[in-house]
């Protein structure tokens, strides 16, 4: 296996993900994945279902979580062992307790306290004026200082919005500058391309508008599905290190429910 999908949003991120964890795992098994991570936003709610499905199909499930912060770029977190998992759960509890039910308030300072985890910085979806957004750059530089060496990665995805090549190039440039490895992800929101219509409807519910008025709030294409290994290799043919990083992270995360 040359690739592991590390950014997957299931329907446990309400009104964003379009597939059940079970469907994701089944599809991953069909595509021949040996391991897959689930990263819902600020919650670990989907892990139990995912674990049950993974046990059935024999795929290794990597526990993960996407932390949406109030004052920084979002991070994907993967605990390496039981200690890391405990820290992550405590962090989420703290965030939940700070605000009303259903929401989670997390700040950069909270995350810096996590040990024994791997971090991936979520990339911006487009470039601004042909360069990375200023906010993203500043955040990444700060993260690079605070996280221990070797635990942070910069993610890159092909969004098929037109400036993919430039975006990947810029992220790679930044990664070289701070000495941080790159990793390839596909920002999966649903298990197969046919789910796009349902995901559009979920977006409308979330934005409280009709589908005719949704306009640019919907995603323009259906690329956010689980892709075959060969396809991921082709998409990242210029950055083979990015694909290798996925294997490294998967290997480092030995925690299992």
């Amino acid at each position, binding site marked *: 296996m040359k690739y592991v999908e590390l950014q997957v949003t299931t329907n446990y991120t309400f009104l964003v993900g379009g597939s059940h964890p079970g469907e994701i795992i089944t599809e991953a098994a069909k595509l021949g994945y040996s391991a897959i991570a689930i990263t819902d936003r600020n919650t670990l709610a989907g892990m139990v279902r995912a674990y049950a499905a993974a046990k059935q199909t024999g795929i290794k499930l990597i526990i993960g979580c996407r932390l949406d912060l109030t004052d920084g770029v979002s991070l994907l977190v993967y605990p390496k062992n039981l200690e890391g998992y405990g820290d992550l759960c405590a962090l989420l509890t703290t965030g939940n307790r700070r605000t009303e039910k259903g929401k989670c308030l997390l700040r950069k300072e909270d995350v810096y306290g996590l040990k024994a985890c791997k971090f991936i910085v979520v990339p911006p979806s*487009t470039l601004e004026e042909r360069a990375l957004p200023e906010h993203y750059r500043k955040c990444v530089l700060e993260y690079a200082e605070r996280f221990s060496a070797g635990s942070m990665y910069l993610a890159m995805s092909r969004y*098929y*919005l*037109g*400036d993919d*090549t*430039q975006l990947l190039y810029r992220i790679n440039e930044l990664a070289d500058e701070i000495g941080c490895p790159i990793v390839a992800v596909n920002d999966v929101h649903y298990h197969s391309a046919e789910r*796009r*219509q349902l995901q*559009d409807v979920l977006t409308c519910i979330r934005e409280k508008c009709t*589908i*005719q*008025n*949704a*306009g*640019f709030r*919907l995603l*323009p*294409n*259906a*690329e956010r599905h689980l892709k075959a290994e060969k396809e991921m290799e*082709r998409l990242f043919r210029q950055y083979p290190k990015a694909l290798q990083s996925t294997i490294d992270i998967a290997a480092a995360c030995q925690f299992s429910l």
Partner: protein
Amino acid sequence: MGKRYVVIWFRFLLTDYMIRRQPDLKGTCFVLTEKQHGRIVVTAVSEAAYQKGIRENMPLADARIYVNDLLVVNSDDQLPERLLRDLAEWCIRFTPTVSFELPDILLLDVSGCTHLWKGEGQYLRALFTRIREFGYTIFAALADTIGAAWAVSHFVGNRIIPPLQQWETLHSLPLHALRIDIETVERFNKLGIRTIGDLKTISPSSIKRRFGDLVLSRLRQAFGEEEEIITPITTISPYTERLPCLEPILTRKGIEIALSKLLEQLCSRLVKENNGLRKCLFKCYRVDSKVIELEISTQRPSNSISHIFMLFENKITTIEPALGIELFVLQAPQVEKLSPALQPLWEPAAIDNKRLSELIDRLNCRQGIEVQRYLPAEHYWPERAYRLAVSLDETLTTWPLNQYFPLIIFTPPVKITVTAPIPDYPPMNFRDTRDTRLHTIVKSIGPRRIESEWWIEERKHRDYYLVEDTDAGRYCIFRVGHYGSDTTEWFLHGVLP
């Protein structure tokens, strides 16, 4: 089940209406007149005048012989149509298909409605009584066909003709009951044909040969052998918006929010129809069943949310919510067509457009020039990403810059043949099928993949590329479908000059 029709004949439509408007005219003899061929002729009589012997189409001078101090009342030409239209709209509560015919007929298609009144007798009686209460003298008949109902209402009286019994009812009626003109009737009379029954015995081909299609058609319509169709009137749905609240609203801010939400819905409908309101009614239904009404009116029709809200703003302080308001209703009882020139008064942004709009008007007048303005629309699909602006005063939302949008767009896209490495790398060259010129591509960006907007139509997705060729011409091309399939086609969607 066969169709059933009701015809209501207003014997004294205009004069009864006059009596409604001025009750002291009741019982007096008065007429409506018109100048015809140089003399004044009576066009409508009141019931009292009718009793005295005055008839329509009688010269006024003759009418004055019957009644010395005959009163002449003015009316306008549009009155019968307005009256009948209002009455027809009123009759919609009895059946959805209502039509009217000048000068004094209402046609109702009541198939399937009468059982709601528990029978045709009750139905017709209810209809009859309600209209009588308005003060109109009417004769109403219910039959299988319009022709039969018309004949019965005019020449027999208030009747219900059971289904398929036209012959019994109609055969003894004079030919006038068939809705054919006087001259033809007199010709028939000279031949000894006086009743509808007589006419039915003659063979249809002879009638057609000597008297034309219309007579035959009317005869057949009366007996249901030919169909007669009525075009029902359509009513405009009233301009009303309502907002029920889950919890009773107590605060002024809550009322303002409710008002602005309702105004948004109402004004978007008005804007779409290019109408503006003159009067606006804002009703608040309180928990203790009291209703508070606020009314504003404008000098000129307006559909601007900010302006109408400002007019209401001062009055909102007078609302006493008491225990709370549970329902808000916003109505526009008076709506008129908007004259476009008035819009700049409300939007401060469109001040200096006067000179620009005058220039555009002058240009448009010239031969061969048409000035159009495009605004962005929120769609990813380039064919739908722009729309024609309706007027100069529409405010601009920003054009999204990260879209691959050609400045000149070809509709429909032009087919091209392309050499491109599979699966989805930008092409190396393309040939325009219109002039078979080969363009060698030096620079390109892409692909930008756009899926179809599935709620509008289902199509294959497109991969867009912006390319530049050796002549520095820039083109927007796309490929339909995935690389793997045999039917990949490439198209040129536009140029960026």
